[in-house]
């Protein structure tokens, strides 16, 4: 069986020439929960975009064995769903139902299937009964959950997320943590919040300046104080208790 995500020597430059990603090599198997950590500007978001076939760079990216090129874009995006940083950008339809049903409808499923997937996705994130609400009536935490639901309804094998815990209060953050823990999909979560990453993922990939610096067990990498500080991060509280 092909790996979930296989990236070989992938590089990408911005239109103005700055190097966004430099010689990325990584391999993620199905079912893993991976934290993509690094300081701002490290290229985490860019890497997620590349995985969803939004960028044309050099090198090879395969999602479940299929090349992430513009030609395969639709197939790739039904296998890998990206939850973007700002839920307002992900919720663009007049009602929540329309948003969550958007993906399945574009996949060409019939009406009954679309409805059942939508209801299931909303139930998973705890927003059942709110189908007819417009997005701008939802709170910040509800919008986050709704954004995740829009991807869940497509039933992808892999879910990538760009800083899902940002600007959430601790209670909502814990709720999100529990939700993500309950998902069976492969998860790749880009984040600057070490505590959030540590509580969720067993593997961590550290990026800085467009390169992969370290790739291995989350606890090993995230408890390495020197490594964390060199790359503008901090040690997760749970690990600092271990090391002291």
């Amino acid at each position, binding site marked *: 069986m092909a790996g979930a995500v296989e990236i070989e020597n992938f590089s990408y430059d911005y239109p103005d020439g700055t190097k966004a990603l430099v010689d990325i090599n990584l391999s993620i198997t199905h079912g893993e929960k991976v934290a993509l950590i690094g300081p701002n500007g490290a290229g985490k978001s860019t890497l997620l975009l590349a995985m969803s076939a939004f960028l044309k760079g050099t090198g090879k990216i395969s999602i479940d064995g299929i090349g992430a090129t513009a030609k395969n874009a639709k197939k790739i995006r039904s296998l890998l769903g990206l939850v973007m940083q700002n839920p307002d950008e992900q919720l*663009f339809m007049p009602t929540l139902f329309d948003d969550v049903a958007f993906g399945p409808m574009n996949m060409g499923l019939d009406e009954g299937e679309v409805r059942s997937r939508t209801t299931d996705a909303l139930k998973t994130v705890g927003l059942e*009964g*709110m*189908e*007819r*609400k417009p997005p701008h009536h939802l709170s910040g935490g509800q919008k986050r959950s709704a954004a995740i639901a829009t991807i869940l309804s497509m039933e992808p094998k892999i879910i990538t997320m760009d800083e899902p815990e940002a600007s959430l209060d601790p209670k909502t953050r814990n709720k999100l943590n529990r939700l993500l823990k309950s998902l069976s999909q492969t998860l790749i979560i880009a984040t600057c919040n070490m505590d959030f990453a540590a509580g969720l993922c067993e593997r961590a990939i550290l990026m800085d300046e467009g390169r992969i610096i370290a790739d291995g067990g989350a606890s090993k990498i995230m408890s390495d104080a020197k490594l964390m500080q060199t790359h503008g991060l901090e040690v997760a509280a749970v690990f600092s208790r271990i090391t002291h």
Partner: protein
Amino acid sequence: MRTRLGRSGFYAGLVKLIVFIRAASERSLKMHMANELLSVPVAIGTLGTAAAGLGLICHKAKSLITSDRFALMGIMGAFVFAAQMVNFQLPLMPGTSGHMVGAVLLAIILGPYAGAIAISSVVIIQCLVFQDGGLLALGCNIINMALVPTFVGYWMYRLFVNAQPSQWRLYLGSIIACVVAILAGAVLVPIEAAVSGVLRVPFYTFLITMVGVHIVIGIVEGLITAAVLVYLRQVRPDIIAECVVNSVRFSKGVLYMTLITAAIIVGAGLSHLASSLPDGLEWSYAERPDEPDFEPIISNESHAVAAVEDFQSRYSALPDYTIRAGAFGQSAPVETVEAGAGWQSFAAVFGSGATMGLIWLGAWALRKKNGGQNAPRSN
């Protein structure tokens, strides 16, 4: 029994009134048309024209606008709302602020077809969500404020401004484009009102007022549009470059000919319209000793309007008064149709008031009984 409003109460009321007028005038600077300026035939005619126009534009736009620009068009419309909030002090009028309308800017950035659709949607939302302009006047408002300004503004801009304009050219072109575009739309308002015959404001007076106000608005709009384009050129030249790529092709020669022909038609039409319409039923002019020829001109051409009004008042429901067609030149007030009509009017008003009171009481009692319904639905 007389009550005297205390001095402080009077001044407080006056201050409130002034604040209200200032606040309201900041919105009404847009001057959307209301239902009541139009007659039903004109309203239906303009609704039909606007619908046909939008239908044609949407049809044409399907081939011009790729699906990845849908979000952009919608969000640009929302931008227009936000931009209309940003105001600044006008130089010659202390205490008044101006703000941009955005139609021409959008036409330049998105192209005329997408721009027309975007601004039309803005006008529709203004009518539905903010009640700016009536539902029957929507056709007029779409034509006056969306369809005409975007296309006219776009063409005028493209006539004057080439791909790499100097700052001078940009400003001049923007101002000319905005003035002509906004005037073209504004001029239609008195025409639509005059053809409807509801308002009694003399056509020329209305026209001159609208033209005067909108020249100022146009100049201000042109300045802001140019300033925004200059700013964009500095900060995000890629956006400006994309506008040039997306621009619609047209032949300048054809455009010049169209403009000249249009100007001739409009000029001739306006003068004909102005002379053939009565300047209101100007009773006060019926006795102008200094111009003895004045009367015949008015009475000849007002007969049609007066006849319609006479017919309406005879057969309309519950007329409160009648204007007699033959009452020209009389300085005495005219009697109403039937003596009993006064009591009918009385009954209508008080009967309706009582009915509304009953409805309100009924609903209140029902609500009390149900213990507060109307809570938001669960979904």
